[in-house]
């Protein structure tokens, strides 16, 4: 809890003291238009991501039926592919397509602007929406499935019965995509699109006043908190059955479903082939691939260990939070407070971490290689807390009380809860691992000298224009992620 809450308290306390001393002025943005435009942009990306994810989920549900749950888990694991891999791949791919169109039709199109941002964001987070939608489809109770099969159900049955059952999952995935992107200006700025988070960064760059930027970010924080409230409402309505169901699609022969399934297949093909083909093409220009990889071995190992350590360490505050949340009467307030380290801009949080940890008492830890893992725990523990909290909410209160009664002691209770919720814990660990692997805003500020994460190295080489080296490193990252996902898959005993 010290890792997650202390930097936030440090930031808020510093901001209030600075305001009291008159060295910082509260400046709520006078550019509400930009804020609204940014929200619209990210909402557009989220909506497209949900629509594409729905199509892909229908395709898997139709084409694979009995093995669909295994594909669902694999799909969720594909979230490990960093967004910048998708961004680079789509830029290269679309530039080539547009060059052909321009030369054929004498046009002056280019892949930039809001359209490019929405497309790349939507594809970057496709596994999240597709995976959650697919699990929701597979969690439809067997009786409803059987009934639909017996009555040779059609489009109306799907829309009237199935769609309401899966819509909480669709909404939640869309809200999560929105939250994960709202503080990002990296992708929009690559395409020349101005967003509110870039205004915050430029404000910071102009005057270096992180407390002023904190105050300026409050409208964005408020929007995120509203999104979190909706997330909380729909999380209660969601029902995922991870075991015991018999997958089956009673709508396989319905034309409406077949059309969506075909679209989903095309979408998934783009999702996998665009980055893969592009990376392989660019990597072919590297003369000494082994040299590049061996020269980056330290960064790979450091990134993997740091991300894994932070993902697993997040479980401790996450389970404690989930337990408190279960018994709390102020759930909305509690989750809003817990979300703050996640929704405050990473650079501001990072500087607060420095002022907290680079003190005489904690200096040895600050300069240790553990520091990025500590920073990631502070930033992403909320994600695991959210997943485990809502998993715990689905348990009967009587069951939890029984656990406490028959297993006295906090440790014993937690051991039992962990046993009941281990799948949700694992899901949280995997998601935080993915987020930590691709994070750089905070990592840049706290990584000790002599160490570097692979993400920072890739960004440095991206800027330099060494797209061939970037491609090799990204392919290596993909291969490692696939190995990890295979290991997790086997850990889950093949999804059973």
């Amino acid at each position: 809890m010290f890792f997650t809450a202390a930097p936030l308290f440090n930031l808020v306390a510093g901001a209030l003291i600075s305001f009291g001393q008159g060295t910082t002025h509260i400046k709520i943005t006078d550019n509400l238009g930009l804020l609204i435009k940014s929200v619209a942009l990210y909402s557009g990306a989220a909506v497209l991501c949900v629509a594409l994810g729905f199509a892909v989920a229908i395709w898997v549900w139709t084409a694979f039926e009995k093995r669909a749950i295994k594909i669902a888990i694999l799909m969720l694991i594909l979230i490990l592919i960093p967004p910048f891999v998708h961004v680079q791949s789509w830029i290269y791919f679309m530039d080539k397509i547009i060059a052909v169109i321009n030369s054929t039709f004498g046009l002056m199109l280019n892949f930039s602007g809001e359209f490019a941002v929405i497309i790349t964001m939507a594809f970057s987070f496709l596994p999240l929406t597709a995976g959650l939608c697919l699990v929701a489809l597979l969690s439809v109770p067997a009786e409803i499935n059987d009934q639909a099969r017996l009555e040779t159900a059609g489009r109306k049955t799907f829309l009237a019965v199935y769609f309401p059952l899966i819509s909480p999952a669709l909404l939640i995935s869309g809200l999560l995509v929105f939250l994960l992107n709202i503080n990002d200006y990296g992708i929009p700025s690559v395409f020349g699109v101005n967003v509110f988070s870039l205004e915050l960064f430029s404000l910071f760059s102009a005057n270096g006043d992180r407390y002023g930027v904190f105050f300026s970010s409050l409208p964005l924080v408020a929007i995120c908190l509203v999104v979190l409230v909706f997330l909380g409402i729909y999380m209660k309505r969601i029902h995922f059955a991870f075991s015991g169901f018999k997958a089956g699609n009673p709508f396989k022969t319905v034309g409406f479903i077949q059309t969506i399934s075909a679209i989903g297949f095309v979408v998934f093909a783009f999702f996998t082939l665009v980055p893969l083909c592009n990376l392989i093409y660019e990597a072919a220009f590297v003369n000494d691939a082994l040299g590049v990889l061996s020269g980056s071995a330290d960064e790979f190992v450091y990134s993997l260990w740091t991300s894994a350590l932070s993902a697993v360490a997040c479980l401790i505050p996450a389970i404690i939070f989930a337990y408190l949340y279960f018994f709390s009467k102020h759930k909305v307030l509690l989750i809003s407070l817990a979300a703050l380290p996640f929704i405050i801009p990473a650079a501001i949080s990072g500087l607060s971490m420095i002022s907290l940890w680079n003190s005489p008492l904690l200096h040895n830890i600050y300069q240790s290689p553990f520091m990025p893992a500590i920073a990631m725990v502070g930033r992403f523990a909320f994600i695991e807390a959210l997943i485990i909290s809502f998993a715990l909410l689905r348990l009967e209160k009587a069951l939890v009380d029984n656990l406490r009664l028959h297993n006295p002691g906090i440790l014993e209770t937690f051991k039992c809860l962990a046993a009941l919720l281990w799948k949700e814990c694992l899901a949280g660990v995997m998601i935080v691992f993915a987020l930590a692997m691709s994070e750089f805003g905070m990592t840049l500020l706290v990584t000790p000298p002599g160490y570097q994460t692979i993400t920072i190295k890739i960004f440095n080489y991206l800027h330099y224009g060494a797209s061939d080296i970037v491609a090799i490193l990204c392919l290596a990252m993909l291969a490692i992620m696939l190995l990890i996902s295979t290991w997790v898959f086997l850990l889950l005993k093949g999804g059973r």
Partner: protein
Amino acid sequence: MIKRLVGLFFVAVFMFVALFGCTNPQKTVVVYTSVDQVFSEKLFQMFEKQTGIKVKAVYDVEASKSVGLANRLIAEKGQPLADVFWNGEILQTLDLKAKDVLVKADISNSNDLPNSFKDSEGKWFGFGGRARVLIVNTKKIGLDKCPKTMEELVTSPYVKNAGIAYPLFGTTSTQAAALYSIWGDAKAKDYFTRLKAAGIQVVEGNSVVKDFVSQGKLYFGLTDSDDALGEMEKNKDLAILLMDQGAKDIGNMVTPNTVAQIKGAPHPEQADAFMEFLLSKEAEQAMVDDGWIHIPVHAGVTAAKGLDSKNIKIMDIDFAEAYKKLELSKTELEKIFVK
């Protein structure tokens, strides 16, 4: 299953400590650098080979535009981890001096540097730099149709197909502050207001300007010579123009590299050794050969290919005066370009 996972966790922590926790007793120097890793890494390897002192580097990321590292140095002021700050430009270094992050250093290799390349208090040293250039896609536009001065950029009929990086970060902000100090506040503000109104494309960074021009999305754009010349090796349709070279023009801006020692540096002796190395003729020649520096300072250093550094009319700029304009320029330009 739970016991297995908990056991795995502790094994992971132990292995993490074993792999990364052990410190090597070898002499080290900690360098924070905003210079591209592809260039700075080679210099570090050269230094390590020559002296046996291990360099622990902290690199910046283009997305944070050197603001990240500078702010980290300020935040660590009480208990610095860094020994040396090597910056690819100068104004951020002056900012660190103003915030009392730097300390005086006695570097014998700085004796040959022109006075304008050294701090009067000995707290920073400048060396070979990069030029701000106009990168042009000659398939889209002939060189004769390109603007030749910064003033002409605004009135060019092709300004809507031109690009600059946000003038709030990096060398673009340095150039903006330089124009503020040379032209005066009112004229500079008016210039940038008209530039924005004329429809110039403002993009994320110099490398994006370079990429967009190379891809034909823009006809020309302002960027740094290392970005431009590096891309010209891959795309033969590109060319560069130096701005303001006429007899009555202000000259083309050149941004020097700067190096400084951090106050309270944990390894001051090694810091001195690294700064001596970086300010040597040999190091500057290596950076010219690699394509990082295009305007060398040391006599006898062979000029960079692709840029006739001996015949450039360089902007006569007092960077200390430019630094005084930095905050004003950023505040005004933020209102013009970001809002």
